[in-house]
């Protein structure tokens, strides 16, 4: 009986109990998690090189709440379609070199580029080409470890069936938002910033290409307004200037930004008016922004945008 009270054996038994408890809980966790849509913790593991490093001018917390909707994969394409511009596959970034994009920075930037292209394809109901883009996005999203938010299977099914295009659009945009939110909350706002920059760059490229082939005052004005958006974007990018990749990107985008220097935007003030349309509350803004942009300036913006965008997507 004496051996039952041996302190060493008691410690061993206590340790076995603890290990057993840990195993049971771990197994339980694994069993329950493996059935869900989200992936296991291993897949959330982030390599050190893609977590924000260095001192940020603006804290990571503030970066998480910074201006959203800087550029949407949908809005620029909708504008282009509303002007009755024909669809052109030439405006899309090629997807054949996705596997060559090996750094998380390149992958995040191209995620934005392809998200904008997917928006363009969806707006024009070009579901046949959608598969290439969702495949490219899935590859890149997995590369930056946000693939769990991209519902590739459902998107592929919707694109192949050419039905339920609203769902295709919703899931595409929602997946992109989820990836963006996750990156911000995971202290990887640098990658979120690159995604947003990619969307913006491709949106501007689309608008300028349409302006080049099919000039329209409305599109010229939207391009001129990018001066305001670019100021916001550069503010965010400047936050990461200490990083070599971002420094180079800022340098490239500054070439476009400089082109906007003599674009003038004036605001006519007015009070918003609330009206009821078909039983719905509609607010009509009475502040109006007006853009002055010369043809020469527009042409140089078109030229520089093409040059920089093509350079960035070839990197």
């Amino acid at each position, binding site marked *: 009986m004496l051996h039952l009270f041996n302190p060493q054996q008691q410690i061993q038994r206590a340790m076995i109990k603890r290990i057993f408890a840990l195993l049971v809980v771990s197994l339980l966790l694994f069993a329950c998690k493996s059935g869900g849509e*989200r992936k296991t913790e291993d897949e959330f593991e982030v390599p050190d090189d893609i977590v924000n490093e260095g001192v940020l001018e603006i804290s990571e917390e503030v970066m998480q709440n910074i201006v959203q909707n800087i550029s949407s994969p949908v809005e620029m394409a909708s504008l282009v379609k509303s002007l009755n511009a024909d669809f052109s596959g030439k405006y899309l970034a090629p997807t054949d070199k996705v596997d060559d994009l090996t750094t998380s920075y390149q992958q995040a930037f191209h995620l934005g580029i392809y998200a904008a292209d997917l928006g363009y394809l969806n707006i024009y109901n070009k579901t046949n080409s959608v598969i290439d883009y969702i495949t490219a996005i899935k590859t890149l999203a997995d590369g930056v470890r946000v693939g769990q938010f991209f519902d590739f299977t459902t998107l592929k099914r919707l694109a192949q069936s050419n039905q339920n295009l609203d769902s295709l659009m919703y899931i595409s945009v929602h997946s992109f938002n989820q990836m963006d939110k996750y990156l911000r909350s995971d202290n990887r706002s640098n990658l979120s910033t690159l995604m947003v920059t990619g969307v913006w760059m491709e949106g501007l490229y689309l608008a300028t290409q349409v302006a080049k082939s099919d000039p329209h005052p409305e599109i010229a004005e939207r391009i001129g307004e990018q001066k*305001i958006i670019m100021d916001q974007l550069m503010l965010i990018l400047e936050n990461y200037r200490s990083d070599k990749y971002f420094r180079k990107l800022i340098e490239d985008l500054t070439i476009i930004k400089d082109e906007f220097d003599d674009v003038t935007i004036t605001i006519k003030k007015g009070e918003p008016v609330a009206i009821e349309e078909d039983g719905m509350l509609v607010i009509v803004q009475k502040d109006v922004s007006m853009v002055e942009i010369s043809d020469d300036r527009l042409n140089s913006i078109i030229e520089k945008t093409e040059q920089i965008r093509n350079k960035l997507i070839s990197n």
Partner: protein
Amino acid sequence: MKNILKYIFLSLIFFASEIIAQDNVELVAQCAASAGNVTYLKDFIVKLDAGIPGGKPPSAKFSMVLSKNTQYRFSICTAPDSEGEAILQLFDMNVLQGSTYISSTGKEFPFFDFKCQKTGVYHVFISFKEGKPGESVGILSFVKKL
């Protein structure tokens, strides 16, 4: 025993956060669908604690770029188990543009449309009536180009 309890507690927190995340995804989908025949752009998920009695109700702020000649829809959906009822307000700088709740008349709207005439940064504030605690989802949708 203490350690087992710790593991169980941590597991429960883990599962609870998963369930909340899943609920949010569903609420976003439902709210986006209830906005009507429009294109979803962004969602704003909000969970706020109760405000201090007599003080200003707590609110969550989201900043975004809106573009000229575009009609947007701002929708608000309060989570089913939320104590407080959510209100969404849109500001341009410090000027109120629109709200889902008109305090002077007590009228409520599940959404309002905003015909934007000026490209720039706007702010959405989401709060709960009487500063009660609550959960909600706000949705920004694209209606059409004007």
